[in-house]
């Protein structure tokens, strides 16, 4: 008997995930049973307004691309069961002959957009952006790159049937590999994971395609997965080796291959060298969950954060036998363990992650044993966001569409930039980003211990953030300015009561940087800063705004609170440029003092009023008499 489509969708949801059963379980089951009359279901009520995202997909030279599968993934997918179910049961839409598409039936809110087409990948900038229901978007697809070459053994014979991997070590802009990626991008952007690994053919030739632009190392032999994740690589005699890196190397001397969009890099020939490697083994403790749960152990390179190897196992197996990463080349690594329990479909409420602090290990000619990892529950920050309207009905304010709370994207960023272990494990943006519900409530979950700051991405340019506060420490005290202090989290903390107050009426500023005749133009990249000039605003972190200057020397500062500012431009030091995750200078007290110092020195004061849009501002840049690479933090004390 042929089953009907809908029945298939439903029953497979059920068979695949008993957990989905509890998706719409009423919080107080008894309460829902009282009403005898049928009421519209929870889902039916929520969809009061449904909107769409319209758009167009273009490829190289702006030509439309037809037949692209496109999906919208709501930012709040992990915290909103409705979003989760709707997303899972939705089929992608397909772009038409003009590259046009419309994603319909969306609730107001922020989305990331996935696009997939044969022979293309979504451009890096598009894959990181959030889109709001009601917007029009243009998605740019780029042709991925190819690396090809030949694998030979020490006798110069071609070697067939060996897995060759391309490992991205730096982004195309020379920055470290971004840990934060688009949700599901692994699945959307590459077919590797499902088509199986790339192997050498009878001539020893391999061809790795579908590569995003960037810098790669190429490895023959070895495995990137151990345990259950390894099932699809088959069985080969090279799996237990440490990889041989192009051209015939261990890690420190591995060559890098630059891959550009749409280009093929040929003759990346590898001489196999039987690297044996060493193991890193140890134990994991601190998990209270069931033995059937999955545990992931991730080993990353200490300097670059590149994931070297992952173990996927059952908790029972790891409890009994511990873990062992095999066949590792000499180098510095971090090892982190993560256990998931509960139902991922229930998001922050039902899904629990425990993560161990990362342990640094050095492999140097010998096995490393006895690495003890202790799992700790993750922390969360819950709170409420609100938007204050503006009373003054200024003409400038009428042009913009009012922003909606559900369109604000909230995440938390750790302050520990200098500690690479904080970056060694990404839980995935699905769990990192959220947005407020219709009552303004939000929970940012899955946070590792440390000081975190709220990172808000505001819809449009009409909003600015006024305050971010935590409840007073004493009953009659003042609310704590969490924008300045951050939120300190210990493992398992559930901080509540954070209040984010936003307001309509933000100002904005556009302009460009010019350099005076006398001084030579800066060679490095620049950033512009707005620094509040009122003395009482010195410690108001939210009043400090910064933006990178584009290559054409233009800059845009948006979502600025009305007030008086110094406008300054700074060259970005080499060190700052190499950071993958720039933290605003004003987060640090020393940074704020330094910025004010520069502001006072340059004496460029600008008054921004409610809803004001300054355009075509020309900022002439004169370097201060200090070396650009001196970190500004030196001005503290």
């Amino acid at each position, binding site marked *: 008997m042929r089953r009907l*489509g809908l029945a*298939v969708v439903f029953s497979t949801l059920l068979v695949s995930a008993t957990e989905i059963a509890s*998706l719409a379980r009423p919080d107080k089951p008894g309460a829902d049973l009282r009403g005898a009359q049928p009421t519209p*279901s929870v889902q039916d009520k929520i969809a009061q307004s449904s909107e769409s995202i319209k758009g167009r997909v273009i490829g190289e030279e702006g030509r439309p691309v037809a037949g692209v599968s496109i999906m919208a993934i709501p930012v709040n997918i992990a915290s909103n069961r409705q979003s989760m179910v709707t997303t899972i049961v939705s089929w*992608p839409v397909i772009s038409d002959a003009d590259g046009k598409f419309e994603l319909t039936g969306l609730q107001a809110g922020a989305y990331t957009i*996935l696009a997939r087409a044969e022979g293309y990948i979504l451009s890096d900038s598009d894959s990181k952006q959030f889109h709001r229901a009601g917007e029009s978007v243009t998605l740019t697809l780029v042709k991925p790159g190819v690396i090809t070459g030949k694998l030979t053994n020490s006798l110069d014979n071609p070697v067939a049937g060996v897995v060759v991997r391309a490992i991205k070590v730096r982004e195309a802009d020379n920055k470290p590999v971004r840990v934060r990626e688009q949700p599901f991008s692994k699945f959307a952007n590459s077919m590797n994971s499902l088509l199986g690994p790339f192997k050498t053919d009878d001539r020893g030739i391999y061809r790795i395609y579908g590569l995003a632009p960037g810098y790669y190392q190429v490895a023959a032999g070895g495995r990137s997965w151990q*345990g259950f994740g390894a099932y699809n690589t088959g*069985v080969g005699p090279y799996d237990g080796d440490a990889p041989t890196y192009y051209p015939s190397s261990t890690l420190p001397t591995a060559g890098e291959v630059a891959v550009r969009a749409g280009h093929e890099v040929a003759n990346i020939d590898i001489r196999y060298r039987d690297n044996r490697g060493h193991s890193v083994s140890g134990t994991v403790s601190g998990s209270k969950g069931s033995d059937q749960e999955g545990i992931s152990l991730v080993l990353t390179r200490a300097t670059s954060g590149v994931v070297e190897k992952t173990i996927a196992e059952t908790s029972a197996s790891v409890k009994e036998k511990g873990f062992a990463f095999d066949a590792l080349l000499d180098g510095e690594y971090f090892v982190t363990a993560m256990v998931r329990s509960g139902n991922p479909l229930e998001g922050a409420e039902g899904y629990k992650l425990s993560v161990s602090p990362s342990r640094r290990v050095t492999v140097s000619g010998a096995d490393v044993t006895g690495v003890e990892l202790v799992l700790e529950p993750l922390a969360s920050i819950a709170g409420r966001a609100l938007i204050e309207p503006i009373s003054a009905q200024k003409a400038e304010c009428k042009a913009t569409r009012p922003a909606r709370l559900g369109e604000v994207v909230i995440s938390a960023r750790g302050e520990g930039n200098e500690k690479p272990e904080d970056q060694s494990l990404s839980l995935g943006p699905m769990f990192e980003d959220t947005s407020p519900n219709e009552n303004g409530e939000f929970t940012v979950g899955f946070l590792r211990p440390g000081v975190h700051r709220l990172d808000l991405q505001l819809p449009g340019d009409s909003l600015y953030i006024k305050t971010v506060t935590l409840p007073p420490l004493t009953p009659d005290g003042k609310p704590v300015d969490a924008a300045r202090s951050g939120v300190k989290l210990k493992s398992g903390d559930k901080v509540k009561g954070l209040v984010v107050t936003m307001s309509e009426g933000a100002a904005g500023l556009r302009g460009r940087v010019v350099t005076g005749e006398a001084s030579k133009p800066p060679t490095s990249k620049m950033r512009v800063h707005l620094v509040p000039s009122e003395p009482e605003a010195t410690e108001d972190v939210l009043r400090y705004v910064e933006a990178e200057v584009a290559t054409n020397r233009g800059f845009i500062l948006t979502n600025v609170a009305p007030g008086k500012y110094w406008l300054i431009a700074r060259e970005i030091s080499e060190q700052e440029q190499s950071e993958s995750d720039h933290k605003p200078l004003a987060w640090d007290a020393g940074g704020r003092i330094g910025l004010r110092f520069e502001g006072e020195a340059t004496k460029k004061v600008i008054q921004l009023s409610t809803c004001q849009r300054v355009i075509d501002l020309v900022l002439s840049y004169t370097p201060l008499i200090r070396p650009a690479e001196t970190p500004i933090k030196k001005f503290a004390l």
Partner: protein
Amino acid sequence: MRSLTRVAIALAVLSSIQSLARPASCAQDAKETGTITGRVLVDGKAVQGMIVMAIPLESDPVSRGKRMLNPSTFRMAATDSDGRYRLEGVPTGKYSVAPFAPALVNADGASEKAELATVSEGATVERVDFSLSRGGVITGKVTDSEGHPVIAAEISWKPVDPSQPRDSGGRSDGRMYFTDDRGIYRIFDLGPGRYIISAGTSRDHHFGMGLRRTGKVQTYYPGFTDEAKAKPVEVATGTEVSGVDIKFGAPDKRFAVSGRVIDAETRTPIANTIVGYSARERESGPDKRDDGEDSGATTTNERGEFRFEALLPGNYKAEADSIGRLTGVGAFYADPIDFEVGSANVDKLEIKTHLGASITGVVVVEHSKGGAALDNLASFRLVASYTGTDDEDDSWSNVASGGSFRIGGLKPGKAKIGSGPYAAQKFSVLRTERNGVEQPDGIDIQPNEQITGVRVIVARANCVIRGHVTIQGGPLPIDRSTRDPVALEAVARPLNVPRGDSYKRVPVDANGDFVIENLTPGDYEVDVAGNYLNESFYKKHIASTKQTVSVAGESPAQVALVVDVRAKEPDK
């Protein structure tokens, strides 16, 4: 099953691994070892540096899976300049021994090269020899009707002569052939003979969260969908035939289908509900599609509208339902409608919904005084399924921790209440009472009726069936894909219980014993069966006698089954 794959992948994305197979016990601690020696010749000549692997054979499928994941259980040695190899310190046991030579074929022309070796303590198994040749190569380019390369098209091949050894696309080393980014494929381990080459697949590839890749209709070299028109390609060992290019036909024209979902009486639009379509059953034949294009789903907008963009001509059925039906909070049911896609877009479809009936009540555990038993109910789910119909219009409900439940959105009819179809269900429904009266044939549901006072009496699923299967007429056949005896599985099918209770399956161990646990009291039909590939890579099925058994209480019921290996099924 497409949706199953899709959802499974979506869940895999979300959870990577939630619950996994039980940990396997590995018999690798044995200290007794032996030696395997032999020689590898390629086209009659010794080849130095070829790696020979000995992989332990496991009859238990779990251990076999585990072995695949753990290369450290392999033994490997390289051949010397005389082509000889020597595997020492091999723990006693049965092994599959093979040179790792993906581009070579054996004397029969098969790419499968493994020999069986049984290692006993202190002994040397000698002359495990291999005589290999360079495989034939067939290569070409796959393009679509406009001449663009088709990326990652699945390539299949089979010999024209059915007696020739045949390797199917998916093989034991997990290798398949796909075209690359230029549309180029290269098959390089063919024995001498004539082959039929095709591109495309009946299967969809899924990329998680609905990002699927539409399957291309299987097309035979040089460009026919009819296998009878395929042009065979002849290849000899050590030779390369290039230019075997395959061109796909023009894609079929597709049409948009749109409509809306409205309340049948008030005609108000029903927003945010799921609408799905599926192709109605068709005759098999060249027109039959199983390429994942015959079903789809979407949600309605606030005006109750839905739209599907690209349907192939054919007959379809459309349905609407609320997500709430999964959990008992559904409010309505909809009448399915049939529609046909001809040579134009279809619009103005109307799917009508009706306010549904509901059943509320309480679940009680037989012979229980509440407490812990009721807490366990929190993970229990009920299903109401209609009797006397083939429709799978099951409605679902969670059970609150106190045992109360509500199943909403029900259409009129007669429905039985059962337990959800999970192996992990700890309870099973014994009987249902309405106002104290047992309802053995199900509950009568009138239109829009709000039925209260239903008691569902459940029992703990703690019964056990123990069984033994005797093999008659010779040893179990060897599965060509694993080189192990065929893996058998015991199945218990509940009799006379509402639909929703699934079959329970367990592996049969090497002694022929099995234990099926977590059963509710009742009658079951039990048998043992297995699927395998025979020497010619044909799919075969082997099954035991069937036995019906009643279980109750905690003492296990015993079954004794027989597999007669002489009773053969025709080749598939």
